[in-house]
């Protein structure tokens, strides 16, 4: 075991894989500087800077992967995927299906995501629901260094296209580069348990699509990912003295989604609140409601998500991104509602075990 910071853990796992597999290359804008530790160990042939041409180098990543390389393509921010969406939407995600399963695209796209440092709504989006909407893409959103490294290794071994999203509040390098800039005069609400932590000395891949229970609870289940996990844990701790037993699930992957754990926990507590930094409509939070309904689970449901374009001002941004206060409020409201079991309309039969 050793202690690493969040992005350091990802780089560490990536370096372990690169040392073992010469097909893995890293490319993206300013990568020689942003990943200089990888550059001096693996050389400029495997750690390549690119022009500001996302549609070209992400599109090239797709076929490079089809032809035998294992590219890790970096985007400066997931917001900028808009420029190159075609490579993911119409190519990376489609090749395996179009080829009747005969040709795979072992591509990893690594990109910082998320807000909380005042960079405005074109630079702080999450977009994991939007990406996971596309069949054929896996989407990973780790919440701590050990998961981040283990999931990076899993992404490299997955054999299909994986979006690996790295939250900027957890990433020591991106928060310093884009936020702090050497200053001691700014403060960010960084969840330190996610920022650094114990990691294995030798990385093993974690399974993709396996969620974990971060905190057991009997009354309400909070379902979240990334920074939202830490906000949820904080809310759960605050609600405990009020006699509300709140559990927290860390999804870790949006696609594939761990439906089994979700259904198991929610059928036990009978109440679920999704804490999702991505946009509220047509996304992960609605998907979770649909999964529970399809499984026939009758549960009280609420969600705390980003509902509008993220405003620039820190004061406004704090309200728009899911925060502890909003989570607590939603949980209290849900608990105060009559038990869904006892208030079923006539003719509906409970399936709760």
């Amino acid at each position, binding site marked *: 075991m050793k202690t690493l910071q969040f992005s350091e853990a990802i780089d560490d796992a990536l370096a372990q894989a690169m040392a073992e597999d010469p097909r893995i290359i890293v490319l993206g804008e*300013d990568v020689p500087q942003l990943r200089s*530790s990888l550059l001096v160990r693996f050389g400029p042939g495997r750690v390549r800077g690119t022009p*500001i041409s996302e549609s070209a180098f992400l599109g090239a990543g797709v076929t490079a992967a089809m032809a035998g390389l294992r590219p890790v393509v970096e985007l400066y921010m997931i917001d900028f995927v808009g*420029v190159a969406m075609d490579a993911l939407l119409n190519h990376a995600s489609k090749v395996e299906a179009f080829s009747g399963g005969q040709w795979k695209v072992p591509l990893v796209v690594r990109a910082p995501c998320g807000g909380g440092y005042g960079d405005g709504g074109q*630079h702080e989006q999450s977009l994991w629901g939007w990406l996971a909407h596309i069949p054929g893409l896996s989407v990973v959103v780790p919440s701590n260094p050990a998961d981040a490294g283990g999931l990076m290794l899993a992404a490299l071994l997955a054999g299909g296209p994986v979006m690996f999203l790295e939250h900027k509040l957890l990433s020591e390098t991106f928060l310093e580069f884009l*936020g702090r800039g050497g200053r001691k005069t700014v403060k960010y609400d960084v969840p330190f348990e996610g920022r650094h932590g114990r990691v294995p000395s030798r990385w093993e891949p974690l399974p993709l699509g396996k969620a974990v229970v971060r905190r057991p609870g009997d009354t309400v289940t909070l379902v979240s990912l990334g920074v939202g996990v830490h906000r949820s844990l904080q809310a759960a701790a605050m609600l405990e003295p009020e006699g509300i037993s709140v559990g927290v699930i860390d999804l870790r992957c949006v696609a594939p989604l761990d439906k089994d754990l979700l259904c198991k926990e929610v059928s036990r507590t009978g109440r679920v609140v999704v804490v999702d930094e991505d946009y509220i409509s047509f996304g992960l939070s609605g998907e979770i409601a649909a999964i529970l309904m399809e499984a026939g689970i009758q549960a009280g449901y609420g969600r705390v998500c980003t509902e509008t374009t993220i405003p*620039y001002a820190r004061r406004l941004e704090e309200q728009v991104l899911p925060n502890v206060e909003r989570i607590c409020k939603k949980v209290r409201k849900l608990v105060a509602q009559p038990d869904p079991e006892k208030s079923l309309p006539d003719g509906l039969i409970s399936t709760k075990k």
Partner: protein
Amino acid sequence: LIQSQPGSFISFSKILYGGKLARRGMEPDYWRLYEMMKRSRLYEEEVARLWHEGRISGEMHLGLGEEAIIAGIVSHLKEGDALALDHRGTAALLMRGVDPVTLLREMLGFPNGLCRGCGGHMHLFSPEHLASSSGIVGSAGPAAAGFGLAAQTLRPGTVAVAFFGEGAMNQGMLLESMNLAALWKLPVIFVCKDDGWAITTQPQAATRGSLGDRAAGFGLPYLEVDGRDVKPVWEAARQAIDTARVGRGPSFLHVKCVHLEGHFLGFLLLRLVRKPLAEMPAAMKPLISSLFMLGGSPFRQRLDGVRVVNAVLGATRRDARQKPSNDPLVRARKLLASEPERIRKLEASIKDEVRGIVNQALEAGAA
């Protein structure tokens, strides 16, 4: 057409002006241009101070070093002309006449800011000035094409200006818009502000061929201008804007400049060379341990990696932005040297004005 060297370092000595530029022999009002530049400089220095004090949270890209370009172009704009700005649009909006107090309040995130605290410095909008900004590299191209189409259709005689950096010249949407503007003869002036750095990447690591050839490939008139001096920028802009106003289509201005603070405030590469004792150890430690780590490429390839890192640091150390003689303010001031007392008075009055703007912005926000 004037050719620039493919992938060359920024080189001011090679720059010539287009032959027709001096044709009309009109002189700009240097006092007015200097005033615009100086106000922008002092204003942005105040923004930098507020950023360092932590009153502005995230990234901050300033136009320090671009003043001659912005003044030389924006001084030609009239009512109905549009601006498509990049992530570095503060100076252009200020010179275009956007209220400096509400602009500053926006950067401070106050509800009475230009965009009510919702946009911030990368996402500034002023419908009154037909000015929009974006932090997506290259997006000023399509934005200016659309403004140009509206100008051509609804307001003949008006124009649209796109500001972007040389890094954006590898972004497909910008090149596509150059073709579209040429095809439809849109009244667009594409202005490439070239400081020779796309964050940490220099043109020789990102670009092949010349930007002049690219513009020529779309049939755009191309002018290469020394953006440290306001006079040639003003002259080139006059020619390009006049051409667009009379319906003779778009032009491309390639204007070279220096960014005095690098890509953005707190830029790590500049911190490393300005304060090596404080910054270098933390940056170098992981590099050294990684260099000797077991497993990885042969040592020769690792040394090639070290060379890449060194080259960027070396280029930062030798960079044009370190020389005060490249500062457009210093150069513009020389044009007015014959009247030192008038300069002194002008500068003192701008200083008072900017101090007043800052006080007003902060008071209003605190209230």
